[in-house]
């Protein structure tokens, strides 16, 4: 608890003070002082971890894929940077891509920092600075990232404020570095991008532990309820309030209001994107329409009576789309004012009236007011709603007669779906191709924009798929927030020892080709193979939208523990703090490493010992790149799906470059070969087959015990054979001794090893940090 010194009036010789409140936030409570010594980098500034970054970037140098040949950042430009040419400011393509990488990560980090600010400020206003941080009785390490990075142990909401101040300052400095005439080296741009990623992760934790603590979201229990998800899950007979975005505050206030009035049962509160997750964490009666790929589709359906938008991942056309089908809109955030009139200072009566009459889209920057207004307006508006406003399916499909098969739509589709062909088939009453497209379509609407015949292509896809939309009704396990310390104690050893082959996190946005089935198949495969599978955000939603041969969703099929063969949904994007926190906690709880301000040591531990990998099969947003980059700095490799190539940057190792795979043996300080483990830090895969094999490879760590390596290798070889049809070309690099080999595979592998001139090596106590060497010989 904080100590508060109040001075009403002081009129001394030196000073005159009036109404001064001093709240001493960092006072440590008696008997509970945090005894952990502070490590070398509490609140690291933008160069404090440059040494660590240089170390990892030397092994995993940035690999750039420019999206454009020129730069248009300043008025010297546009500059042609093709193939080594420098721009007018002296920058070349490599550094320019480094700048994009930094800018992307900074945008992401700024989003999460701002989101954290908003939610913390809202909660402090509502519950007070002194409201305790409490993320569950089985979670002692309440804030692994804050402890690690900031070096503090937050006890109450108010303690988070200094972390927010730090975030703001660092984000501003990094934003500054993206300007023309600032940073110039690609490696330093990447060091700054890694810093931005780390800040992003820190912001995630601030936001999520605050809302878990104050809003009563699940505190790490494995058996959170299964709730409904899908466009078909929304009960159209009720008034429908749709929340889109990331900030749960307004949506939760809707639920509060409805519960107060006892009308919650008769109103449908549903969400899209992360707000959806957090609404179901807040109340299991809330529903999830789906991930971002369902945003335009569902808004266009006109089923929502009220659309509440808050911040992040809100389509820029959503207000117009909503209005065109008669849905009323309430924007709620400074971040998205959307050009709407600000009615924040009006009474709820006035706002409801405005919404229902002449001002169908408004800005109200007060969550509680939004709660009341949205609920009342939805109830009043629902009877006016003609169910599925807009055109009937047949009317929509009639448009296809205009199709000239010019294929502009396909050429505009980010994933090149053969939509032109499908529209043309519909012309001849064959709806099957459109229905197939529906399964893969990410709902971006670019085809609509492209069609010279003004065919509303996306609506056409939907109209052809009405039956499928109705069927879109699945279950998802409610995001559970933190991983419990008790779980870490159970799995820490098997993970570090390798008996659990790895932790695989399915994260990111729903902009993948191949539809959500691809994602689900991957998750299924790894859960079946007894990896620990974790998920969050749009990926978590999309995993739900799939049934196996028995008609079960993955959440029905697998338990929700943080354990081998389970699938854990942590929740919204900000809940990504928890899987990241979990690997930190393994280092802390299992390996007893100090966390406090001790970033390098923990990252070194994770990189060398903890077989965790994230798969962002979709990663549309800058935030996705920021989260991934933060994970990378901590030593967690990430695989992106093919669209991720457009983030422009990977961090790739070269498995054959033995010098790069030398580690220090902490036991004697000698440089020894640790193998290409993990081989990459950020890899963009083209197909799910490649992704699966790569994930199985990237969970290997130099520190694996023979038993652990055996299990990892067995999965790797097995998947490789299953998907490539052959023994891996690089198997010899992962076998340290014959004891690493699965017994059943020995006959297969040993001849290969011999052929490739393999020699056994010792298993080191691996580190990249000089200071971790215990004793030199």
């Amino acid at each position, binding site marked *: 608890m904080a100590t508060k010194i109040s001075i009403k009036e002081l009129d001394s010789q030196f000073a005159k003070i009036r109404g001064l409140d001093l709240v001493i936030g960092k006072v440590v409570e008696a008997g509970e002082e945090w005894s952990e010594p502070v490590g070398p980098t509490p609140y690291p500034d933008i160069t404090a971890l440059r040494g660590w970054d240089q170390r990892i970037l030397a092994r995993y140098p940035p*690999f750039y894929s420019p999206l454009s040949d020129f730069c248009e950042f300043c008025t010297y430009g546009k500059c042609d940077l*093709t193939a080594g040419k420098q721009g007018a400011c002296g920058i070349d393509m490599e550094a320019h891509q480094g700048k994009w990488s930094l800018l992307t990560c900074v945008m992401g980090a700024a989003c999460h920092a701002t989101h954290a600010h908003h939610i913390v400020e809202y909660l402090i206003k509502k519950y007070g600075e002194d409201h305790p941080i409490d993320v569950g009785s089985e979670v002692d390490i309440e804030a692994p990232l804050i402890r690690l990075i900031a070096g503090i142990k937050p006890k109450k909401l108010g303690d988070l404020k200094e972390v927010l101040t730090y975030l703001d300052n660092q984000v501003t400095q990094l934003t500054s570095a993206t300007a023309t005439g600032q940073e110039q080296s690609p490696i330093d741009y990447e060091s700054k991008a890694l810093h931005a990623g780390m800040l992003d992760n820190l912001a995630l934790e601030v936001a999520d532990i605050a809302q878990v603590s104050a809003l009563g979201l699940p505190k790490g229990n494995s058996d959170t309820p299964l709730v409904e998800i899908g466009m078909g899950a929304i009960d159209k007979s009720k008034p429908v309030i749709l929340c889109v975005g990331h900030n749960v505050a307004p949506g939760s206030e809707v639920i509060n209001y409805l519960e107060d009035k006892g009308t919650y049962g008769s109103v449908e509160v549903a969400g899209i994107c992360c707000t959806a997750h957090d609404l179901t964490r807040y109340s299991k009666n809330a529903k999830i329409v789906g991930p971002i790929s369902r945003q335009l589709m569902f808004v266009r359906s006109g089923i929502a009576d009220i659309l509440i938008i808050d911040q992040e991942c809100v389509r820029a056309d959503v207000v117009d789309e909503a209005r065109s089908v008669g849905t009323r809109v309430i924007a709620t955030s400074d971040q998205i004012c959307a050009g709407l009139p600000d009615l924040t200072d009006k009474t709820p009566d006035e706002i409801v009236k405005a919404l229902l009459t002449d001002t169908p889209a408004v800005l109200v920057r007060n969550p509680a007011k939004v709660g009341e207004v949205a609920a009342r307006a939805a109830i009043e508006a629902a009877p006016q709603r003609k169910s599925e406003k807009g055109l009937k399916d047949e009317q929509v499909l009639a448009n296809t007669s205009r199709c000239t098969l010019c294929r502009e739509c396909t050429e505009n589709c980010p994933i090149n779906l053969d939509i032109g062909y499908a529209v043309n088939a519909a012309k001849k009453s064959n709806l099957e191709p459109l229905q197939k497209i529906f399964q893969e379509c990410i709902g971006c609407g670019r085809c609509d924009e492209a069609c010279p015949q003004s065919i509303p292509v996306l609506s056409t896809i939907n109209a052809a798929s009405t039956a499928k939309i109705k069927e879109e009704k699945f279950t998802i396990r409610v995001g559970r927030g933190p991983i419990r310390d008790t779980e870490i104690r159970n799995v820490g050893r098997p993970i570090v020892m390798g008996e659990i082959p790895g932790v695989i996190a399915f994260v990111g946005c729903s902009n993948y080709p191949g539809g959500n089935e691809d994602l689900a198949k991957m998750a299924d495969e790894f859960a079946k193979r007894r990896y620990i599978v974790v998920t969050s955000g749009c990926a978590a939603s999309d995993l739900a939208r799939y049934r196996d041969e028995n008609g079960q969703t993955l959440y029905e099929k697998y338990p929700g523990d943080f354990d081998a063969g389970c699938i854990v949904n942590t929740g919204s994007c900000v809940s990504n703090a928890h899987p990241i926190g979990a690997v930190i906690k393994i280092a802390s709880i299992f390996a007893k490493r100090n966390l406090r301000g001790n970033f390098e040591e923990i990252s070194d531990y994770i990189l060398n010992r903890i077989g965790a990998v994230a798969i962002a099969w979709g990663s549309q947003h800058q935030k996705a790149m920021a989260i991934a980059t933060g994970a990378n700095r901590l030593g967690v490799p990430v695989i992106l799906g*093919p669209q991720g*190539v457009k983030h422009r940057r990977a961090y*790739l190792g070269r498995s054959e470059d033995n010098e790069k795979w030398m580690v220090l043996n902490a036991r004697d300080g000698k440089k020894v070969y640790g193998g290409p483990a993990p081989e990459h830090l950020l890899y963009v895969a083209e*197909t799910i087959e490649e992704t699966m094999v*790569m994930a199985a490879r990237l969970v290997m760590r130099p520190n694996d015990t023979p038993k652990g390596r055996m299990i990892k290798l067995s999965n790797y070889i097995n998947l*490789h054979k299953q*998907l*490539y049809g052959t023994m891996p070309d690089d198997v010899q690099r992962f076998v340290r001794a014959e004891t690493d080999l699965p017994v059943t595979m020995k006959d297969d592998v040993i001849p290969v090893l011999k052929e490739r001139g393999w020699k056994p090596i010792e298993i080191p106590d691996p580190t990249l940090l000089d200071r971790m060497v215990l004793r030199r010989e």
Partner: protein
Amino acid sequence: MSAKITSYETAEIRGPKLAFNLTPENCGRMLMRSKRLLVVVGGDALKMKVADGVDVPEVAARLARNLGGTIVASPGVFKAFQSVSDVKLINMGLEDAVNRLKDESWKGFDGMGAYDMAVFIGGLYYFQSMMLSTLKHFAPNQKTISLDRFYHPNATFSLENLTPDKWKAGLDAMLQLLEAKK
């Protein structure tokens, strides 16, 4: 001027260094000059048989066989080469392979020296485009040729956008040329 000449995806505006358009026959002639050929088979290769009627792994295998080239392919696709035994095959993802190609000091998968030409075929359009962008910018001396159905401005040489039939016929003509001249 139609934008269609310069790219497949509408927003894929590139330049000022754009791939030379070649006819399939000229691609064949260009390839015959190669002494160290790498054939990079992308992850969309198998789908193209269904969509366009072109058996990409077969095309790749014939190319490599006739020109003494090496094939690199990622899982799934790689499986299609299981019956191919007379060609050097590497299993590796595209980004990993391109990361090596962009290194001017790289000596190839067999350590015998740089590839003087890298053929790209069967890639996901936007992914392939970015891989070619990497090479165009950071390995300007690495010659690349795209045999895919759509024009790839970031390659050194590329086919134009073609209909499936023309593509299939063109590839056939190219292979026959190669095989005849052998």
